[in-house]
């Protein structure tokens, strides 16, 4: 009781902090100089219609690398954290999924995969990008798992995709140092015609790599959880 009261007190205090922070905050009508620069020169400098993408992939590429690393880390940690010695584990009797899900999965999985790929390939043109695409791809695997709990994701392949795409990402970054202005510079390839698929230099490549990577990592994480549950039963 006292504890709860105390907690509420604290949260009230924190609320105070935020209030004093939000007080001066009102949405402005003009961009910050930084944003203005991106808005006005982004197209010219990076050549990607989707400014968010150009910021994510190029201007602040290092952050993105960090994000990717985080997912990679989490995947790695979970894999050795939840690792289950494959001792003759007693399988629970298979739970039969409903017809609907089975069919739907058969029908949808390819479509979802294609959608995901589309989303990250066009990340520099339209809303979306590597992470979103990757997430979508992962949902396909979720669907598969729901349809068939026994579904064994091939860890080797996933790991391979994950690692290769990651290394490629880094490689592109390093190429940026060698061929262009700096690490993760996208101008290692010609910026191409603005608004076309093959434009904005390395961005499509990077984003595709990110997409693959994220997709594989998420599915990896999911399947790890799945494994554990299996052997829980």
């Amino acid at each position: 009781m006292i504890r709860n009261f105390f907690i509420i007190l604290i949260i009230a205090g924190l609320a105070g902090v935020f209030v004093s922070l939000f007080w001066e905050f009102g949405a402005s009508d003009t961009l910050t100089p930084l944003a203005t620069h991106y808005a006005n020169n982004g197209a010219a400098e990076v050549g990607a219609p989707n400014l968010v993408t150009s910021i994510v992939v190029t201007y602040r590429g290092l952050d993105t690398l960090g994000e990717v690393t985080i997912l990679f880390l989490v995947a790695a940690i979970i894999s050795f954290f939840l690792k289950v010695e494959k001792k003759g584990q007693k399988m629970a009797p298979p739970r039969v999924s409903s017809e609907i899900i089975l069919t739907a999965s058969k029908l949808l999985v390819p479509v979802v995969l294609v959608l995901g790929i589309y989303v990250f390939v066009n990340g520099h043109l339209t809303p979306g990008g590597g992470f979103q695409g990757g997430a979508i791809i992962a949902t396909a695997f979720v669907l598969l798992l729901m349809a068939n709990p026994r579904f064994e994701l091939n860890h080797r392949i996933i790991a391979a995709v994950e690692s290769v795409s990651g290394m490629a990402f880094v490689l592109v970054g390093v190429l940026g140092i060698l061929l262009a202005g700096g690490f993760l510079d996208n101008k290692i390839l010609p910026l191409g015609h603005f608004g076309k698929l093959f434009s904005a230099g390395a961005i499509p490549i990077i984003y595709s790599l990110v997409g693959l990577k994220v997709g594989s990592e998420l599915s990896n994480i999911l399947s790890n959880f799945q494994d554990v549950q299996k052997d829980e039963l």
Partner: protein
Amino acid sequence: METIALITSFVLILIGLYGILSQKNILKMIVGFSLFDTGLHVLIVTVGYIRGGTAPILDQVTGTSNVSDKIVDPIPQALVLTAIVIGLGVTALMLAYALKMYQEKQSLDIRDFKELKW
């Protein structure tokens, strides 16, 4: 418009925090975290809002040159992307922890994990 978003984010954060601090069940605490994160993300996006601005994607509507007065701030949107991914990672790891803790003690009550103290 932004005020609503702001207040929402504000409330979400505090609710999430309350959940973290008051719920005994680890899973619920993690849910609290997700709320907290979500609130944060809303906040970030709100911060980038410009009155009457549109999505920061150059197309026919905006044109390609000096669009600075037509779009909202793209930077927070870029940041929120990162933030979301990080949040995702953290949540995933926490869940893994929860799983392990349950395996160890068949309990999800945070109060049952007090071996280390003082």
